[in-house]
């Protein structure tokens, strides 16, 4: 098998006496669609925060393309190819839709402070390129018409979409989506599933999502990992996960509880 894009090796994180994630091992292959599920408080978002460099694992290792990411700051990890969205939308509210995408593109811009101050012909050309690439990206997701709107004035669904577009503008190899379906109605969820599959195929990137909505997770993920109390209790295809007794127990309670006589 080829080298995994992301490899978690017994990654553990403790906050004081609480072990939020314990010995979590997982491999993500390039261009794979993988889901991370688990009951509330299972440590899914914490796992995301370890992968994106927000938290450092207390024990264990995380490797991206074979390189350890220990001590690498979030902004530097984005450069290495990890991008994310947030559970509670975090757009640059006062910037326009276009400028949200543009801000995410600056990490691949070769022109910086000096060019901005000198404003030569080259600067104009490069800024023009950035703008047309940003518009192109927005148009793929049908946000092109809204490019001059203030980001915080967009409807909820479009804000979620813009967050994904902004993450894609950093040209990631791995895109982490933290509960992308939260607060969406069934039609929007359906659209989202198409969108995620489309992103994976069009941009040829790996997508990892944390999600509570089982229709979405089971519908699109090729592989699923399940966390409970910070421990990975199962990993496999959606079919395997749906049949796994441990997973069923984690979500619905154990057999014994279910069989307790209700008729007394």
């Amino acid at each position: 098998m080829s080298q995994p894009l992301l490899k978690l090796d017994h990654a553990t994180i403790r906050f004081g006496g609480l072990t939020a994630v314990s010995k979590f091992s997982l491999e993500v292959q390039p261009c794979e669609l993988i889901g991370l599920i688990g009951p509330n408080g299972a440590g899914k978002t914490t796992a995301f925060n370890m992968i994106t460099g927000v938290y450092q694992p207390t024990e264990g290792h995380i490797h991206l393309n074979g390189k350890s990411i220990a001590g690498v700051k979030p902004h530097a990890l984005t450069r290495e190819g990890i991008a994310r969205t947030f559970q509670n939308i975090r757009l640059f509210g006062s910037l326009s839709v276009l400028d949200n995408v543009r801000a995410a593109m600056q990490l691949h811009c070769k022109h910086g402070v000096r060019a901005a101050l000198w404003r030569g012909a080259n600067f104009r050309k490069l800024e023009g390129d950035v703008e047309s690439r940003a518009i192109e990206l927005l148009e793929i997701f049908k946000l092109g018409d809204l490019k001059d709107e203030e980001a915080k004035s967009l409807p909820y669904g479009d804000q979620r979409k813009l967050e994904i577009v902004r993450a894609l503008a950093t040209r990631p190899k791995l895109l982490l989506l933290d509960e992308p379906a939260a607060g969406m109605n069934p039609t929007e969820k359906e659209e989202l599933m198409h969108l995620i599959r489309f992103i994976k195929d069009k941009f040829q990137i790996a997508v990892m999502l944390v999600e509570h909505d089982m229709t979405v997770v089971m519908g699109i993920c090729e592989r699923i990992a399940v966390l409970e109390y910070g421990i990975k209790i199962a990993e496999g295809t959606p079919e395997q996960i749906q049949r796994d007794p441990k997973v069923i127990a984690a979500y619905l309670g154990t057999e014994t509880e279910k069989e307790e006589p209700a008729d007394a």
Partner: protein
Amino acid sequence: MSSTLNPSSTVGAKRWLIAGIALAVVVSMFSAQFNRYHLGIIIDIGINIILAVSLNLINGHTGQFSLGHAGFMAVGGYTAAKISLVASPLLPPALQPVIFLFALLAGGGLAALTGLGVGVPSLRLRGDYLAIVTLGFGEIIRVIVQNMESVGAASGLKGIPKFTTLGWTFSLAAVTIYFVTALVNSTYGRGFIAVSDDEVAASSMGINPVRYKVTAFVTGAFFAGIAGGLYAHHKQFLSPTGFDFLKSIDIVVMVILGGMGRTAGVVVAAIVLTLLPEVLRQFSEYRMIIYSLLIIVLMMARPQGLFTWNRKKGGAA
């Protein structure tokens, strides 16, 4: 800053800069025609524009609350004044403008270095902490100057040559406005506003928040230092009490009243707030009371800034 930047509209920016400097120099040639009192106020306005526009980069665009601008102004002012006092008698009159330019740049440079020293450790902190650190820094500078015999200590530094003219002041004000506007209106510059809007999101988009904050802080400090140099060679006298905490607050008020992050508004606010105390001079002892009341009323009536029109009221988000 919700407007989308348009590269083609910013092309002419350099032309505006040159036009601004040319206008300042030409008007300056007729300085003798002005009443000396009026000329003094006009130069005060120019200096305050530099201070307010540069602080706007830190407090407005980048969203970091700094209260240390008077401190940086003092560093620049004293450095520049000392250089002119030493170098001016040694060199022929033809070289005086060169000395002045050098003194201003040295003052700005030292202020920027000080900004780097204060900024690197304190900009890792968020929100109110920075305000407290910069407030303390400003006071430290004032106390140091108060005890430095070589710059006149508490009795002040006298006899600074009168180098500051209307042309110098407004040319440098034009440079400051150009610098800040050009910096922010670029793909690179959107990073400042991104950091201000959401630091966590910015860092996950590959933007290094600490770096942007330090850049804004050092740039702001540099121009505050330049303004300090102009001030020194305008008043020809420097005293530590001129750079106290209240001076920093004055500049912060200009930025807030102008609308955080809106350069044009901040320039207008700098003009209005420089003129206001002068206009109120006829009310003698009630002057500062009226001034303070006006500011309170303005803040209550237009918290989003006096000159902010295009932001929707309330905001539905």
